[in-house]
């Protein structure tokens, strides 16, 4: 609930939430992967 409120996607429609979560998850995965490779 806090995640929805702080990012503001609480007010978005379900399909918009899916887009946001997909993009965010992809970016986080990329950052984690690259950090792992780098380290």
């Amino acid at each position, binding site marked *: *609930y*806090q995640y*929805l*409120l*702080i*990012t*503001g*996607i*609480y*007010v*978005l*429609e379900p399909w*918009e939430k899916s*887009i*946001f979560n997909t993009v965010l998850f992809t970016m986080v995965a990329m950052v984690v992967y690259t950090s792992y490779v780098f380290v």
Partner: protein
Amino acid sequence: SHIVGHNAVLYNKPFVESFEETPLLVAVLTYMGYGILTLFGYLRDFLRHWKIEKCRVASERDEQKDFVPLYQDFENFYTRNLYMRIRDNWNRPICSVPGAKMDVVERVTHDYNWTFEHTGTVLKNVINMGSYNYLGFAENTGPCADSAAEATVKYGVGVSGTRHEIGNLDKHEELEKLVARFLGVESSMAFGMGFATNSMNIPSLAGKGCLTLSDELNHASLVLGARLSGSTIRVFKHNNMQSLEKLLRDAIVHGQPRTHRPWKKIVILVEGIYSMEGSIVRLPEVIALKKKYKAYLYLDEAHSIGALGPRGRGVVDYFGVDPHDVDIMMGTFTKSFGASGGYIGGKKELIDYLRTHSHSAIYATSMSPPVAQQIITSMKCIMGEDGTTLGQERLRQLSENTTYFRRRLHEMGFIIYGNENSPVVPLMLYMPAKIGAFGREMLKRNIGIVVVGFPATPIIESRARFCVSAAHTKDMLDTALNAISEVGDLLQLKYSRRTRL
């Protein structure tokens, strides 16, 4: 928090006002939230532009494309992409008087707030923390309602004429004499609309070659009136006497731009209570400045009349200053008298001048007699002229409720703005999604509240605004406070870093 120092010697009581600063992390997260919603707003506009999504906003037909656009597309951006998503929190239909409790008509939406349908259900006895009903005169029983009903039978509802013509009734003159006595000024004039009292009379009082010094958070009616007057407008920081004095000094020293002629007159526009901030004007200091620099003072007591002061005479009574020090006393009957309309009080020559020159007196139909009667009855009740102590009790009740409500919210850890004696209590929400969530969660708990966000407030100062009423019992306040605390924990709204009492 920045409690600006002030000349304590001018005050007859402690003046405690606080505006705790937005926590930096919350501010950054708020910008991030608005950034994300703006991105999705652009995405939606893109889909609407390429007809991928149906456009529900009013727009010109294809045949009209070559004309000047009726709808400013970009100016509607926030409305259609942000406000629409949470607008179920606003304009909720009620089917009772907006008293301490009210009945809210339940409605449902199947298309994310673009359209609503009534379910036929009524939410009964919702505790009303949103309406302006400071003294609890919004009621459909009791002496006010009875006398208004008599006046309706005797005079009818509408007056089809202006004050200059057949619309000048004995009821109006009775009301104006009573208002003058209530304010402690020589004479007064009543108008049928509060907003118009400002926007239609300031143009009669100021004009070219005059300077208007306006508080930055003044109400739209004051802003419109000042603009319509054609006078030069300068804005000083909210309730900041250093900023006001600097503008006054510059105005006196430099005079009018280019010609440097002295200003014909300088009018200071301030409000008694700022209804979005919950702050009270520093009236003793403003009066000291106006005397020092020979300026005129226009005091808008829309919220403070009836709600402040030991006798309910407004911010003048609250600070114990002489009403004659205020050149133009303006106020409305909407918030404390359960009525509508406004008044201007002051010297007799001023009021006589307004009677002949005011736009409202010449063009607007005059106040409806039952409304005038409602004001007369409630005002007499406040003055104690109805033979009861009901008015005095309500004033005391409002003051107690205000102090109690503010103290409890403060103890819970919320950031609340304004003066400790102001019955308007802004509670800070900050993030855009929390505006919608707070309003919805509170209605689930049977509490009706008002939430306000950007652009009506600065982008990082979205808030819920509670209006305390004398009609609220302690049980109602405790119920509301418990619900607020519960929702505050759920939404993580207890941001205050100040030491809890």
